[in-house]
């Protein structure tokens, strides 16, 4: 999942595209992982 997120961050996937195609709010459940949280922050800005 981290790799997948890093790829999305790396290629600047638009947040809307990413949110939709990653299962809506599904990844929010993994915010407790600091690295995932950081990358989600980069993707979503929050």
């Amino acid at each position, binding site marked *: *999942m981290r*790799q*997948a*997120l890093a*790829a*999305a961050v790396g*290629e*600047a*996937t*638009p*947040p*809307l*595209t*990413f*949110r*939709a*195609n*990653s*299962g*809506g*709010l*599904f*990844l929010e459940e993994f915010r407790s992982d600091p690295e995932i949280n950081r990358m989600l922050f*980069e*993707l*979503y*800005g*929050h």
Partner: protein
Amino acid sequence: MPYLAAMNPHSSIAHYRIASKIGAGGMGEVYRATDTKLGRDVALKLLPAEMASDPERLARFRREARAVATLNHPHIVTIFSVEEADGIHFLTMELVEGQSLDRLIPESGLPVERIVEIASALADALAAAHDKGIVHRDLKPANVMVTGEGRVKVLDFGLAKEMRPHDPADATLTSAGKTAVGVVLGTPAYMSPEQIAGRTLDHRTDIFSLGIILYEMASGRRPFEGASSAELASTILRDTPRPLTEIRADLGNDLCRLIQRCLEKEPRDRFSSARDVRDGLQALRLASGSGARPATSTSPPPSIAVLPFVNRSGDADNEFFSDGLSEDLINALSRLPGLQVASRTSAFRFRGGDLDIRQIGRQLEVATLVEGSVRRSGARLRVTAQLVNAENGYQLWSERYDRQMADVFEIQDEIVASIVKAVVPALLGDTAHAVERSTENTEAYELYLKGRHYWHQRSPSTLRLAIQCFEQAIQLDPQYALAHAGLADCYGILRLYGWISAEEGRPKAHAAMTKAMALAPASLEANFSRAFYAFQFERDWHVAGTDFQKAVAINPRSSLAQGYYAVFLAMEGRADDAVPHATLACQLDPLSAFIHSLASVALYSLGRLDEAERAAQQALELQPDYLLALWTRGLALCGLGRHEEAIQTLERAVTLSRAPIFVGLLGLDTRVRGVLMKPSAWCVSWKIEAAGVSTSRPSHRCRFTSV
């Protein structure tokens, strides 16, 4: 009877010191008290003696109270505890200082802004409780407190069922009649038909009660009245309330319709949720600016739709021009305060149809329609336009313009002025140059119209054509702000669907939107473009939020701006703000597949999958095979576990577009189908792998693994 002795002022019960009695009724006595342990004032409610002596009923009440105590909502009075001391059963609650709503409604009703404000708070409270399966069952003005600062608090959530001497769910005409022989029972004035008839209740009973309160706040009287409880109950079951529009002229049609829908006899005909009521109310507030603005006359506000002008040039390629002319008229008319204008997508659905003008008027809910034609021959231009009364089909005005192409802007201004003169004469002074002229170059203007024509189609090939048009327009007039904005929007859409990479799109979009902002910083188009750019390319949420907000402020009736702002807010997780904007966008453009799809995207982003699926389905009913709707419906179906339908929907999207985002979702590997068939494994694997979906190189990135 220990209660009376215990509850004298200055007496105590457990660690509560009684201060004064603040209420009494069939549901027990209420005292102001001080919690001496925590040092705070509370409301202390004694349970009726007959309940306290019935262990089963008491147990049910405790369970209900515990559930209500979990509600933490600014518009619901908080329950602190359910206790027993010295054989006295009581509950303690947040102490609300103020007046109950029944004392605040004047004979002529409340101001519209206040109605919407209070109703929004009530609907919000109901939505929160309904989410937890708690139904009030006894919503009435006496159960609504309004504090000195104007804050609204609902009392007695979910407690009515157990606290009443008789369960209102069991209240039939017969039991309602018992009041006549002295049995204490709450008035049926606020009961739903199903409640009176003793049928099974769900959350929609509260929506009916809310409708009665709304009606009362609006008119100063209840919608159903009767000399006795039985007569009143019969009226609720049978009669249709007098239309509010007949009682009070300044309410506005939308608010009246909303109230009427709450009061439908059949629960299925009402709003399906309190959240929908709240969203409808919020949309009313947004539509009228900062607050719900009362209408100023007894007649409905003037309204108009501009149908697409018919291209009579004998050349199908000229259709963009006739469409563009119509669109510019729509934009110009939309800027006039006090005039409601049907949006482009809704009006353009009637292109080439054979519907009677009166039917079109009814469907678009407008009083007047503009139709016309355009014939071009070289530089010569003939435009005909007529204004028609949609109610009776009579022509109100018509004109023919034989001019040169260079005069196109004057023709538009003249048409707008003529329409306004006929429909809303009071606005006449505002119409000079109502049509936005950001270029004087008619060739550039023509190219711009062509570019927007292609942009609206939103496919890779038409977006490329749109880019060409905008670029050529800019070559002819480098100061043409709208063409720069259009160019930036094209790259934004291409990026959204993954048809270009960020590296390719970002610099071009940035240059175009920067130029647009420099040339026309106050325009809707430039602000929208900057917001869209910040959203799609930079993840700059601050700029995106500010500019989307600015765009909707410039023209609150722009469904495009409202729709995208809703999506933006949804992405920020701001459901309370997002949904009203999405609702308003759909109200402004009810026949637009695109706008319903945007609403679906917003709802999906909020995790409201059922509603997202319904919105997408609505879009597909309006326009089958609409790409954005297929996408968002496929996603919602995935989330709902309806995998076969999801596959079919997304496969259709792939077939139609080959857009990388759709291909990525389905995967290019045939193994995917195998995984998709196993929902339990698929849900996780798809979601994780889809996180790595590349919007530029799907074939390399979209790998699905089983879990």
